[in-house]
């Protein structure tokens, strides 16, 4: 009702005027009836009425909502004061927009990735179940979450009751060939057990999910994800029930997954039943650690007891297969954490960095407001002498910072829409199971941030200008009143904190940058310049015998090597720095058997052609490379890396020794095969930032069918120029064969560094921005001090102070907060850097180069910021200075 009144107060005022007019007429008429002259009658009527304006004002106030009116006044007043100093306002708004924008985008990502529940049914009860090797300590970064062997999974599922259901999935790759002359395409696929979608609570958008009977070897059914359905099949619903060709084999499409389903990542294009392409031998292997297990906890069972049940089964398996690499325990991890595991730390780091920047932004605006408050000191003092309440004055000043922050926040939200898009595109590791976008909660967050920032920025200056010392401004005519001294102290302490936080950010950025540079300059162990790489995989349908595979591979190598400008070519299942790919456990035949409880040795498994090592420039340490004879003839030879010898055969001559590799499921080979070591090569990194790992190389010509092959071509000049000639050679051998990931080796390496470079770049950007803000603050404070001390400087000059001395005086005055801030910041960094120590590569938290760099940068910037005002102070004309005020 009062709202109604409030909105209608203009009309009710008009009515009142009419009423008053009516009253005057009546009264005048009465008076005239009493015999007064018309003029006198009117005058008397007016006298009786009193001041009509006052009546109107009373009613107006009665109809107004006081707080709202006051708010209106405050906003109007603040707008006027802000528009009087447009430069200040624009800078302050821009600073806040930048800070709030950055904080909002990071919060958007954090919320989507870490806070929002996954889009599945009861996501809280979904866990990933891993095998776990007890040796690795808990709570350390290298706590082992090992992929699960299918045979273990089937035992878990049948022998335990703590979970409603468990499903298993693994990754796969297929060549999707066209139905109507479309280009062939290598697609990433996932194979999931039939109950996976049901377990997650996902309904296909079209068609149906797999049935239990379809989950068996050789079954040719497939589900499409929304992206491939739209992209390749033009969103035509008729595709359900039709056939598509994978690796040349027809598969029937039974369903299409909904558009939001991008689990486990957006790159997966197709889903197949888990057992469709797995041989029964593989499924019975307790050693084929290639799969992920998702489980749904029963509502009445605790995770601990469900885990204990599975753990008991696993321990039995461990005892049962002592010669296989069967882990003795299991480890669960919530699905959400599993998807976000890699980005959790960098995200938190960046969020804290952006929080620091926001704080610096607030302090800066606060600092500027204190300076303005000083200029308006007298106005405030006079108003309060006239009876303005302190609360009113504070409210008025807060209105300014609220306006700045509101405008900044608005700009920030717009900015963050853009920034979030850029960031999600640049950040390859981000899980995409939840889409990342702005929503109500994020906007609410931005608003809260906005008002918190306004309070932080506005309260301190408002309190300081309206404090008890306010009246002194009236008493003293000189500018160096007691209140301005305390205000200067306040500004200096704000600045000290600001610089302290900046130092923390600078140290963090410096460490991340150094760590990134270390990573980038790490020696991969092979030639990386002028190296073209590409992937292909020979479909098992056409290339069903080792001979056919070898024929293709050898013909390709021969043709590529004869392209003019090609120096060498290497073929393997993967290349250095391209990832982990997989490992095998083994035993050394010549060594005594392992004691019970001793860990089985393990090494990365690689396949290589005879020219692989020389083409990649991996030096031979002893023995020899593969020859053309190590081929289908099954000579069972292998080459090991120096790390393997160092780690597992110290003091031995490895050449001629034999490795027993039980898991190497070699087609047609007897189960127990010993491989003779013919050579030792030097180490390569499988991934930058990781230590070299023991590696064994099998001859690729021994006849591996299926699987991905990687070709590396060492060229004489710019490698990408060779991508078309090389692809032409592949097309001439098999026009149906798709080629993927055509990149230079440096690009491959660069991609693995993208995340490190992103965190380093972002934190550096935040740090530089903060440094800029801090230097602006420093400049502002010193300029203010200089104007304050103009007359003092004049007196000093008149008394014979030299300009150099004055310069020194002012510089020291300005640099003091910088030095205090530096000290404070260094102390804080010691604590802060420990938190992200694990993200650093080859860099200690107290890296002397970084620390001295930070100190030098900060001091240089501080001196520069102080120099201009100090210089101005020392160049003052003494007469002018003395005359000021």
């Amino acid at each position, binding site marked *: *009702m009062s709202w109604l009144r409030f909105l209608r107060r203009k009309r009710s005022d008009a009515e009142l005027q009419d*009423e*008053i007019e009516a*009253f005057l007429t009546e009264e005048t008429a009465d008076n005239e009836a009493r015999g007064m002259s018309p003029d006198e009658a009117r005058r008397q009527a007016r006298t009786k*009425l009193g*001041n009509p304006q006052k009546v109107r004002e009373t009613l107006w106030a009665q109809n107004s909502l006081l707080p709202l009116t006051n708010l209106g006044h405050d906003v109007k007043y603040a707008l006027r004061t802000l528009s009087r100093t447009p430069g200040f306002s624009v800078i302050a708004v821009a600073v806040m927009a930048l800070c709030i924008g950055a904080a909002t985008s990071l919060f958007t990502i954090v919320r989507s990735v870490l806070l929002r529940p996954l889009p599945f049914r009861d996501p809280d009860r979904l866990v990933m179940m891993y095998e776990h090797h007890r040796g690795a300590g808990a709570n350390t970064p290298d706590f082992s979450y090992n992929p699960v062997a299918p045979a273990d999974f089937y035992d878990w599922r049948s022998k335990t009751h703590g979970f409603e259901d468990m499903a298993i999935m693994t990754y796969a790759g297929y060549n999707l060939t066209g139905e109507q002359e479309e280009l062939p395409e290598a697609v990433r696929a996932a194979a999931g057990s039939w109950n996976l979608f049901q377990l997650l609570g996902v309904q296909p958008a079209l068609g149906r999910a797999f049935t239990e009977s379809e989950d068996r070897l050789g079954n040719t059914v497939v589900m499409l994800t929304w992206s491939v359905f739209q992209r390749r099949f033009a969103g035509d619903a008729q595709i359900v029930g039709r056939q598509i060709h994978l690796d040349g084999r027809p598969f029937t499409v039974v369903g299409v997954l909904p558009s939001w389903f991008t689990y486990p990542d957006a790159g997966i294009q197709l889903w197949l039943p888990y057992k469709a392409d797995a041989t029964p031998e593989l499924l019975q292997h307790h050693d084929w650690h290639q799969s992920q297990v998702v489980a749904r906890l029963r509502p009445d069972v605790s995770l601990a007891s469900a885990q204990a049940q599975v753990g008991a089964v696993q321990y039995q398996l461990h005892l049962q297969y002592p010669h296989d690499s069967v882990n003795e325990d299991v480890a669960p991890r919530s699905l959400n954490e599993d998807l976000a595991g890699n980005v959790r730390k960098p995200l938190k780091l960046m969020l804290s960095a952006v929080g620091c920047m926001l704080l610096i932004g607030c302090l800066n605006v606060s600092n500027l407001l204190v300076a303005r408050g000083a200029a308006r000191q007298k106005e405030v003092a006079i108003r309060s002498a006239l009876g303005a309440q302190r609360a009113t004055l504070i409210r008025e000043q807060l209105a300014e910072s609220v306006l700045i922050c509101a405008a900044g926040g608005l700009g920030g939200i717009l900015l963050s829409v853009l920034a979030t898009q850029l960031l999600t595109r640049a950040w390859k590791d981000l899980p995409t199971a939840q889409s990342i976008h702005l929503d109500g909660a994020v906007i609410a967050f931005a608003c809260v941030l906005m008002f918190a920032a306004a309070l932080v920025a506005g309260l301190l200056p408002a309190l300081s200008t309206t404090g008890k010392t306010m009246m002194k401004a009236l008493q003293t005519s000189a500018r160096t009143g007691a209140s301005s001294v305390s205000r200067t102290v306040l500004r200096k302490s704000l600045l000290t904190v600001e610089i302290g936080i900046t130092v923390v950010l600078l140290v963090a950025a410096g460490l991340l940058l150094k760590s990134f540079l270390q990573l980038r300059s790490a020696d991969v162990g092979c030639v990386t310049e002028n190296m073209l790489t590409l992937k292909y995989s020979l479909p098992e349908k056409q290339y069903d015998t080792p001979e056919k595979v070898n024929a293709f591979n050898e013909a390709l190598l021969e043709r590529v090597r004869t392209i003019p400008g090609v120096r060498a070519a290497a073929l393997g299942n993967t290349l250095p720095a391209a990832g982990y790919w997989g490992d095998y456990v083994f035993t050394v035949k010549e060594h005594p058997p392992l004691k019970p409880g001793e860990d089985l040795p393990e090494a990365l498994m690689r396949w290589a052609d005879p020219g692989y090592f020389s083409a990649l420039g991996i030096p031979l340490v002893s023995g020899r490379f593969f020859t053309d004879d190590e081929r289908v003839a099954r000579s069972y030879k292998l080459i090991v890396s120096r790390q393997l010898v160092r780690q597992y055969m110290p003091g031995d001559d490895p050449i001629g020794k034999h490795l027993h590799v039980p898991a190497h499921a070699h087609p047609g080979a007897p189960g127990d095969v010993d491989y003779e070591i013919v050579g030792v090569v030097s180490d390569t990194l499988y991934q930058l930032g990781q230590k070299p790992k023991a590696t064994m190389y099998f001859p690729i010509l021994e006849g591996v069918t299926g699987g991905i092959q990687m070709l590396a071509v060492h060229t004489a000049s710019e490698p990408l120029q060779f991508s078309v000639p090389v692809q032409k050679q592949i097309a001439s051998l098999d026009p149906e064969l798709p080629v993927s990931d055509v990149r230079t080796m440096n690009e491959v390496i660069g991609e693995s560094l993208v995340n490190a470079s992103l965190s380093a770049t972002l934190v550096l950007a935040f740090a530089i921005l903060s440094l800029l803000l801090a230097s602006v603050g420093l400049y502002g404070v010193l300029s203010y001090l200089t104007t304050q001390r103009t007359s003092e400087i004049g007196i000093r000059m008149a008394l014979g102070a030299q300009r150099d001395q004055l310069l020194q005086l002012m510089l020291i005055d300005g640099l003091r907060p910088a030095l205090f801030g530096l000290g404070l910041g260094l102390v804080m960094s010691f604590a802060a850097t420990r938190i992200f120590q694990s993200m650093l590569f080859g860099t200690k938290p107290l890296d002397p180069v970084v620390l001295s760099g930070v100190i030098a940068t900060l001091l240089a910037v501080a001196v520069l910021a102080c120099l201009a005002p100090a210089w101005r102070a020392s160049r003052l004309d003494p007469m002018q200075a003395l005359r000021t005020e």
Partner: protein
Amino acid sequence: MRKSSQPQSAMLKGTLDMMILRTLIGGDAHGHTIAKVIEHTSEDLLEVEQGSLYPALHRLEDRRWVSSCWGVSENNRKAKFYRLTAEGRKQLIRETSRWRQMRRAIGLVMGEEGGAQ
């Protein structure tokens, strides 16, 4: 500021609303009439300040104790008439009884015979 604001004509706080409501029992009236009636009935002991009459009328209207409409006065002039609502009648009864109690209480304190009556 007004000359007429002598102590004896100043109104007791909070009684104006009640008197306005009471006046309206006799029928609809506009501001001028209401003021005149109050002054007249109080034998000119009370003087209604216009500065408080109109805000009071609007306040009563807000509380829905009176309603208003524009009409023509007895002298054929446009005027805003106020009318007592059912709610206003109840309020008048409440206020009157409160007033009686108050008058008695003050009377007792001031040592008047038998308080009020």
